[in-house]
């Protein structure tokens, strides 16, 4: 009998075989994400919706005399951003909803590397989706620009910043969804919270700040706004409002009644929200039992 | 009485059940056997109308399940113990089922007592162990006091106490003249409680016969086993008389084509000492493995065939 096989099993297991290194956890999470159907669906819908809505919106505005194609660039994202949000929620909550967490956290008992790996993997997947969705948005404005004989120059002024903001906006929404899913551990509550905060809260705040009767033409609402209102401040500091600022041009200036954070400021506020929820999820993961 | 005739169910290009015909008669426990993905669960789901057959028919008391006037009273069904909202208590789950047929609360409490669920009746089903979930499923099947029962893996996850209880329960139900169709992977269990078995593989019928008959088909059945310190002379003697002898370990010979009497006589003729002599009995498990040997197909890639 050789010396190698005579070594006790326990000793061999602890010395020769490395455990779940972070790189491996990332690889495992990547496999999990890509092997499901729902992320691919969410990504495809995001890209298609971004392109189609931007195209329709640019077509609709192209009849206006002062038509500027780049103004329509981010309109598709107003609907398409739900895709990354849902994607994040499904990844974050899916682990717990399906019971896969029992497998995952017995393999990686320290747990937090799983969350960190999910953040990385989701960010990477969302980045790919976001780049495609932004490209689809650019394609969406080209036909109407061509019909008016306007050339689209993505390198001029603050357009590169806008494009970058659009990409980061979609990635950040995916991470926000992931954090909510990991914190609440169930799809429906996480999704409802996400929709509430990102979609409905801005609507409520707009309704409140709207000086006319609710639902009236918002184009005419910004006529006589006071410099900075409580509501306006709340609106840009809320996750949805801050995130939306990322898809505006730096030179656009603030909406009436809101402090001028600009796209960078909005991005930072939203990043802070994402971080807060992620930390809460990590704390819950460390401190609470996994079912 | 459950009658399945030329039943075929396809999902796209996958054929889950392929021209299956069998009958589960009243007053008997019919075991339903087959490897994973053989089409057992699909057949049961078609029988109770959850899925439509691609072709063929499945009837209960001569009627399609969906045409039964009072399905719960005609057929008790347990397809999957996890057919319960995890947020609902066992009592409320059964009550909601009962209400669809105007069954009284007293009857709900009766089946809860009968299945030993009393201590857990007001706990949310999401907190149940596998065995408790299984008891809840059986309670649901018994609720309407039905003449036919369809139970998919009823002893799965039960403790020995519970296994014994299910065995007695299905025997008693059959003795009362009811039809019981029961699938299981536990061969010993089925051998003990089923009167006849239907074995399928890849959606096709492999055997439909009384348990005893299936067991006798086992290769080992009818083999004589003899242990002797003198295997060589005994083998020569037996082969000369036309029997087939397969030597085993420890001086044991398996003899086919000769009775116990023949082997004993042959041993005396050649002077071999016999330490042990008897017939091997076949088992349902062996017969099953031989029947399904080439029909085993683990359809891991086929998401639709397995339980989702």
């Amino acid at each position, binding site marked *: 009998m050789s010396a190698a096989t005579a070594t006790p099993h326990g000793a061999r297991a602890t010395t020769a075989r490395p455990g779940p290194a972070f790189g491996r956890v990332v690889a495992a999470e990547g496999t999990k994400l890509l092997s499901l159907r729902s992320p691919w669906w969410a990504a495809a819908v995001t890209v298609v919706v971004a392109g189609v809505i931007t195209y329709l919106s640019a077509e609709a505005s192209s009849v206006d005399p002062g038509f500027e194609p780049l103004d329509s660039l981010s309109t598709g994202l107003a609907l398409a951003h739900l895709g990354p949000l849902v994607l994040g929620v499904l990844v974050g909550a899916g682990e717990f909803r399906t019971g896969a967490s029992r497998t995952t956290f017995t393999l990686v008992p320290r747990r937090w590397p799983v969350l960190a790996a999910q953040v990385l993997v989701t960010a990477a997947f969302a980045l790919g989706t976001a780049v495609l969705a932004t490209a689809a948005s650019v394609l969406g404005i080209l036909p109407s620009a061509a019909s008016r004989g306007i050339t689209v120059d993505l390198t001029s002024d603050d357009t590169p910043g806008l494009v970058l903001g659009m990409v980061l906006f979609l990635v950040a929404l995916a991470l926000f969804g992931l954090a909510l899913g990991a914190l609440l551990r169930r799809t*429906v509550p996480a999704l409802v919270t996400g929709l509430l905060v990102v979609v409905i809260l801005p609507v409520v705040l707009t309704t409140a700040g709207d000086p006319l009767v609710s639902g009236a033409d918002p184009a005419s609402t910004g006529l006589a706004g006071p410099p900075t209102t409580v509501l306006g401040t709340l609106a840009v500091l809320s996750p949805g409002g801050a995130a939306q600022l990322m898809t505006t041009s730096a030179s656009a200036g603030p909406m009436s009644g809101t402090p001028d954070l600009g796209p960078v400021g909005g991005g930072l506020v939203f990043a802070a929200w994402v971080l807060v929820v992620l930390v809460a999820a990590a704390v819950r993961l460390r401190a609470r039992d996994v079912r | 009485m459950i009658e399945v005739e030329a039943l075929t169910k396809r999902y796209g290009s996958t054929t889950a059940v392929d021209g299956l015909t069998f009958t589960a008669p009243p007053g008997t426990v019919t075991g339903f056997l087959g490897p994973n993905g053989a089409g057992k669960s699909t057949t049961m789901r078609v029988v109770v109308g959850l899925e439509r057959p691609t072709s063929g028919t499945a009837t209960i008391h001569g009627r399609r399940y969906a045409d039964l006037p009072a399905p719960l009273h005609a057929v008790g069904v347990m397809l999957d113990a996890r057919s319960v909202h995890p947020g609902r208590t066992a009592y409320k789950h059964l009550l*909601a089922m009962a209400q669809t047929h105007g069954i009284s609360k007293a009857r709900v409490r009766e089946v809860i007592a009968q299945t030993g669920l009393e201590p857990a009746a007001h706990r949310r089903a999401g907190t149940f162990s596998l065995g408790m979930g299984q008891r809840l499923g059986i309670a649901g099947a018994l609720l309407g006091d039905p003449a036919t029962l369809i139970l998919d893996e009823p002893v799965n996850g039960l403790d020995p106490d519970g296994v014994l209880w299910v065995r007695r329960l299905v025997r008693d139900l059959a003795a009362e003249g009811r039809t019981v169709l029961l699938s299981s992977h536990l061969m010993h269990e089925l051998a003990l409680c089923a009167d006849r078995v239907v074995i399928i593989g890849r959606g096709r019928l492999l055997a439909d016969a009384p348990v005893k008959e299936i067991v006798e088909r086992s290769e080992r059945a009818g083999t004589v086993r003899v242990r002797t310190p003198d295997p060589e002379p005994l083998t020569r003697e037996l082969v000369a008389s036309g029997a087939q002898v397969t030597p085993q370990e420890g001086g044991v010979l398996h003899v086919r084509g000769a009775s116990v009497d023949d082997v004993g006589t042959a041993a005396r003729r050649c002077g071999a000492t016999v330490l042990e002599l008897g017939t091997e009995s076949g088992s349902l498990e062996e017969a099953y493995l031989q029947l399904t040997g080439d029909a085993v197909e683990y359809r891991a890639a086929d998401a639709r065939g397995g339980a989702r």
Partner: protein
Amino acid sequence: MTTVLPESRAPQRASRGAPRRTGPTLWRVLAAERTKLTSVRANTWLVLGTVVAAAGTAYGLGMFVRPDDGRSGSWVVTSGFVLAQLGFLVLGALVGTAEHTTGTARTTFTAVPRRLPVLGAQALVAATTALVTAVLALGASYVATAVAPLADAPALDLSVPGASRALLGFALASVAVTLLGLGLGALLRRPAAALVTGVVLAIVSDQLLAANPSRFTDTVRSLLPSAGARLTQDDAALAALDAATRGPQLGVWGGGVVVGAWVLVVLAAAAYRLRRHDVR
């Protein structure tokens, strides 16, 4: 653990097919669905959350109403709808998908193999729950805005033209959104898909189109389920809406008709899928 053997029951043969053993009727299925809805604690929390959200929003929005901005007392009381509709949508979607996500469908549809009575009963039970929730939400909104001192918000005055209709409309719109969620849930069978579709149809699309006002977008807006929110407005607000739109003017009940048509179409699609497709 006690394992009681089946006791000697009534003679088997005699009881089989006897008249007392009757099958599912709509009334019985209704009772079963009511038990199902009330026995899940999450639904209770959802109803309470919706009431609180409606009242909280009404109070919050009421703080910003000024006497000169044309908002009536009924506007303040029904303004919680913007947030509460999400609760109604979730309620409907949960009732519609719960069967399929939890596997209860196997139990339910073996007990009621004709299936459609289950969908009908779910619609009735969900609509009733939505109605009760809406009435509670209106009451809570009224109390919240009446008791707490809101600087300039007008008090609820039912003599304002359309004010009482707006209160009734709040309940009707709530029921409609709930049924839309139920239909989408039963049709798509996945809560995430049903919720996102519902939110897009009932809220997001309208916001998106409002950002690009034109004859075309205003026409589309008037044909979306979000038009149901018009039911919560009084006469003056509706007139303002109709004056602002470049699309068709829906008038008093037009929004209700639009959302009602959506509910019917989605429920019919759900019924078709339930009838024709396998249940897992």
